[in-house]
């Protein structure tokens, strides 16, 4: 007999899961990561209902952008202005002006790396397996089903009471998910 990972409930529609997320939060399930909602597409506003804050991805993007710009400045200066100075068309060996397209593109490139890898980093991906996949129902979460899962590790978790709370919030098909 394997251990219980959490209790999962299904909801009928984006509207129902949106309302349920708010109700559960009001019932004390705060923004701690021990519960989560699963929707086949982003349901706007539900993250506020659950108390999830703003994503941290922008900071990673900013770091990427600064790195990219600095890289552009440094490589053009080192290569054309310092290591192998070259007169082309009577222009200065190096200035902030002429290689600007290079700074610009590298800023965008590294910012995009920041956004892309930042998304993986903040989401903890890649992670091929996760306990929620143990639920046989869960395959429909990427199709048309809406789920809320409350982990047994949540301080408020109590099998009987959590079940009731999920049912009161409009959940059905309430089932245990094993570790």
């Amino acid at each position, binding site marked *: 007999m394997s251990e219980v990972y959490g209790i999962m409930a299904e909801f009928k*529609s*984006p*509207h129902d899961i*949106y*309302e349920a*997320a*708010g109700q559960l*939060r*009001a019932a004390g399930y705060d923004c701690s990561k021990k519960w*989560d909602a*699963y*929707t*086949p*597409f*982003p*349901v*706007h*506003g*539900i*993250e*506020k209902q659950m108390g999830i804050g*703003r*994503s941290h*991805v922008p900071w990673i993007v900013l770091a990427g952008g600064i790195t990219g710009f600095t890289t552009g400045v440094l*490589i*053009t200066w080192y*290569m*054309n202005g310092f*290591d*192998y100075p*070259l007169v*082309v068309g009577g222009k200065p060996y190096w200035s902030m002006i*002429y*290689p600007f*397209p*290079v700074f*610009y*593109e590298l800023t*965008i*490139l590294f910012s*995009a790396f920041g*956004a*892309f890898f*930042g*998304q*993986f980093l*903040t*989401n903890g*991906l*890649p*992670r*091929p*397996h996760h306990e*929620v996949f143990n639920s046989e129902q869960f*395959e*429909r*979460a*990427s*199709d*048309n089903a809406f789920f809320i899962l409350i982990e047994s590790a949540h301080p408020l978790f109590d099998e009987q009471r959590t079940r009731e709370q999920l049912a009161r919030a409009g959940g059905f098909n309430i089932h245990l998910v094993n570790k």
Partner: protein
Amino acid sequence: MAHANDDSLRDRPAILAKVQPLTTLPRKPLVLNNREFHWITEKICRIVEDPAPTWWWVCFLVSASISIFLGIGLLWLVSTGVGVWGLRPPTFWGWDIVNFVWWIGIGHAGTLISAILCLLRQKWRTAINRSAEAMTIFAVMCAGIFPLFHVGRIWLAWWLFPIPISEATWPNFHSPLEWDVFAVSTYFTVSVLFWYMGMIPDLGTLRDRAVKTWRKYFYGILAMGWRNSVRHWNNYEMAYLILAGLSTPLVLSVHTVVSFDFAAGIIPGWHTTIFPPYFVAGAIFSGFGMVLTLVLPLRTMFKLHDLITQHHIDCMCKIILATGSMVGYAYAMEFYIAWYGGNIYEGFTFINRAFGQYGWAYWIMISCNVISPQLFWFRKVRENTALVFIIMLFVNCGMWFERFVIIVTSLANDFLPSSWGYYSPSIVDIFTFFGTMGFFSTLFLLFVRFLPMLPIAEVKHVTPAADPHYHPEPDTAYAAAPAAVGAGKGGRR
């Protein structure tokens, strides 16, 4: 805790309470026939899951055979030298650069749809953005082949990048050609990241539906363990929005830098400041031409009429009309400035373009790019899919001729009549270009077969039922138009 009705009232613009409109104008539905979420999943996943239809195999074999010409052309070039192309004095940029600019321009519509229309909250983009982004990537791959092989000794092409080499020299960052290396490689990389990241939730859907083991592994690895969690979506949407924000200045810069390759030169007809905006408008114009060329047959073959609706085609036709008119304006303005600027070489170049030895190419360009899209003023034309498809072929063709006219006429007849010449492509040029068409189609057909062609999650998201404030049986007139006035957007901004 918010109540749904309060929320939708709060999102309603205050002005509506004052002016009290008699009725609300509902937006056109983006998915017809009130399709359910499951229907959308089935429809899009089945394209990948069902056995390949016969027509797919026919197209695939034909495309793959055509792409052999690319191999022949390139092998011929590498084993002999760049001299096998039709480049002769004074024309050292010919079909290769024409094809480069043409292919890269085509790519721009994909980024426009995925990035700029995303920032402008044009929800109709969802039905076409995935295939348009795929088109971008494959078009940039085709584009890259030409300058890469034009360097002559392809095995030294890595000298373009700032990597230490034995001669201890470095790339010359004064040159727009070097900027192009950065612009195009950044463009390709960011387009791939954007495309792949947008696909992750849908790859998760394919993984969850997979029955065969290889499919479970293939899509499982690609989906990276995506779980559709709200926490995932929160970070994902932020990253997606930022990538859209980054791709917007990127796409505008790429064709700007491409146009610098010309505008920074002193050749008459190239040395103009109108080039960056003119090239970008032309790129979007040609790119939408290619999007429709690809999407219209797929829509028919896979019966996607509920997802790619007449409204989508209408919107694209209008963008083509707008950008086509901008391109037409640029042609006229170039002529005007050539006269007004008073430079005799510039003046001659433009008269020569229209009436000189390449006049035929100029008039093909004008009729395809300026005249044919003007038909889209008429609703009847926009609603006639076959006609739209034919006009798109004209647009694709016209934009190729635009680049030919710009590049070849200026070089073939520059300052000194004693150095003039007439450029024509060699058989190797023709093989290589023809081959890229096959290469592009092959990649696109493989994409259609193995990856979700339409963004499943995003299409579901634009249906009215996806709105958390949606009520199937509305109790007020306002609620009858749930897509209007950004209802349900409250959480994001």
